[in-house]
């Protein structure tokens, strides 16, 4: 579990937008990510899009993990638009939970990096988030130049 840990640690926001409030899954994922050495900013459900954008900016997050069990994924493209408008287009986005097949292409086209269904294993989740965070950190470093 410690292999592949990033330095500095990956900063991941685990949150729920929209109206669904079931958070057992996202709490378990947050625990997985923490035990894999990541810093997880964890919010309760019902975060508004402006609040998520502000949070992502202030916390300098690498990846946002959205847990969606009902219809909340339908407004993820709106979140991505808002992030880009705030200069946060480099932040990675993963959607986890229940997303009907016919609604996935729209998400991927909007910029979601991966959609992880309920059968995803802990190792898969950690691997996907780590890989995405690594890519995002590279982008940020390139912007700022070499950071010793």
């Amino acid at each position, binding site marked *: 579990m410690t292999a592949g840990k990033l330095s500095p640690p990956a900063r991941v926001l685990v949150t729920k937008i929209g109206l669904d*409030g079931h958070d057992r899954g996202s709490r*378990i994922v947050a625990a997985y990510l923490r035990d894999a050495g990541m810093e997880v900013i964890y919010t309760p*459900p019902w975060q508004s899009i402006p609040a998520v954008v502000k949070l992502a900016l202030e916390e300098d997050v690498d990846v946002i993990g959205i847990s969606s069990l009902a*219809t909340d994924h*339908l*407004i993820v493209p709106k979140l991505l638009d808002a992030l880009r408008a705030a200069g946060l287009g480099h932040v990675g986005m993963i959607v986890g939970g229940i997303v009907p097949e016919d609604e996935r292409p729209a998400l991927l086209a909007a910029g979601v990096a991966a959609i992880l269904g*309920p*059968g995803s*294993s802990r190792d898969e989740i950690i691997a996907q988030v780590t890989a995405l965070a690594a890519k995002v950190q590279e982008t940020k470093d390139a912007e700022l130049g070499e950071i010793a």
Partner: protein
Amino acid sequence: MSQEAVQLSLPGFEQAHGRWRTEYDRQIGTDRAIKNRSRIEIKPLYTPRDWNGDAFLDDLGFPGQSPYTRGIYPTMHRGRTWTQRQLIGLGTPEDYNKRVRVILDAGATAISLLPCNSGFRGVDCDEVDPVLLGTCGTVINTTDHMDRALDGVPLGRISTAMNDPSPFTLLAFLLAVAKRRGVPWSAITGTSNQSDYISHFIANHMFYRLSLPGARRVLLDHIAFCRTHLPGWNPVSVVGQHMQQAGATPVETMAFTISTALQYAQDCVERGMDIDHVLRRFTFFFDISISFFEEVAKFRAGRRIWARLTRERLGAKDPGSWRFKFHAQTSGVDLTEQQPLNNIARVAVQAMAGIMSGLQSLHTDAYDEAITTPTEETARIAVATQNILREEAHLCDVIDPLGGSYYVETLTDQMEREMLKLIGQIDEAGGMYKAAETGLIQGMIGQSALAFQEKVESGEEKVVGVNCYQDGNSAPPARPTERPDLARMDAHIARFKVFKEQRSQSDVDRALDALKRAANSARENTYERIVEAAAAGVTHGEIVRLLRAELGFGHPLVVV
């Protein structure tokens, strides 16, 4: 039972048992210890050596007699079958009304109402993105909405389960509608299904609206109001469902739920209410997992513990107070997205466990519950499941059919012991309110949840279609996902905005001021004012917003 005693009453027992054991050990190959979800070890065989009925009268007794292990009424399902109470909620009030009429036409006498997630959040329909509305429940923000939702529904003759947490605005709207229709409040029956704010704080953050002390205040006001005005209503439903769905083991779930009930009973007594009067209107609400025998043992142990604690600890004298009444729902957490039709079998097994446990009312999930709100077809199958179990499998013919099983009785005793231990722990922590406030319960549940998840990941806990027998996994059906009609929802929102413009603003302001004063005075009853506000045209969002400002916004304690 001692070895000699068994030998005396059953000559040859030891030898026969020994013979079986030898052959078993020889043939079994690698035998690993099996533990159920509550971490109790399960043996391959149970005999009179484990349980022999000596304590029959003390521990089991007869149905309708303390300690009610075998059932709370003398006739149980053979006399009156369990109530079929299917949860419904979706779309606009008109959408709900269509569904509920179908159910009533089919002969149901009990309905259930599930509000839209926007309602749980505490906002009105004009405050959120319309694409999110009405997908998981019905949008009802005013008395008018409730009137349309219950159009043609005989309020005085059916029982309603309101799945609405504190501050119970939906019931307030229903009472205003009853007044409009000339139906006396004394004829209104039903339950405030989600009045258990402690369980929401712990395990269902979506239902948690007001701060802990605020919710405590409103619940007590609600109970007092119902005592005076709604003799047919159960204001308290202590909920085990959320905690079990969050990962609590069956033992933990029952122990935590009973502790919560004790806390509420204590709060009522401290407020000066009579314990018997209060307990008579306590009901419970549980999930039924697919761990079949464990669920049966869980409910039987719960009944027994409740019968004894109410009498011994709370001093309740009325037998009505000792009876553990519960509604149960088959657990959606055991259902899978993969190979969804398998869920029909799962729900049937869960329902069987619930029926044989002696529940009072039952909701069976639709097989697609894991993915979406049920369609009419999947909802029909869920009801048919109950009918088949009753009519074809004859599950109602015998009361407590599993009673006397060496396994079930031993397991009931074991689970009771574990439950009492946990209840003792919570007592030491100062009671359930404090235990929840400090995060003690959340931590325990979190650990159980993680442990179970790890078992599924490792394959130790097998789930068909998920970590075994996956070859049946075909691509999901190509049908496009059903979503509420956006045009109808937009029209509903538009109509709502017009309503707000046309209502009497002075009536609204007066009602909100009265509610604010009540919230700040310990001597007034906030729920009386909420009911008045509902009748004055105040909306759900306005009521919740005011109470959050005066009594505190509900921030659940997140323990990861």
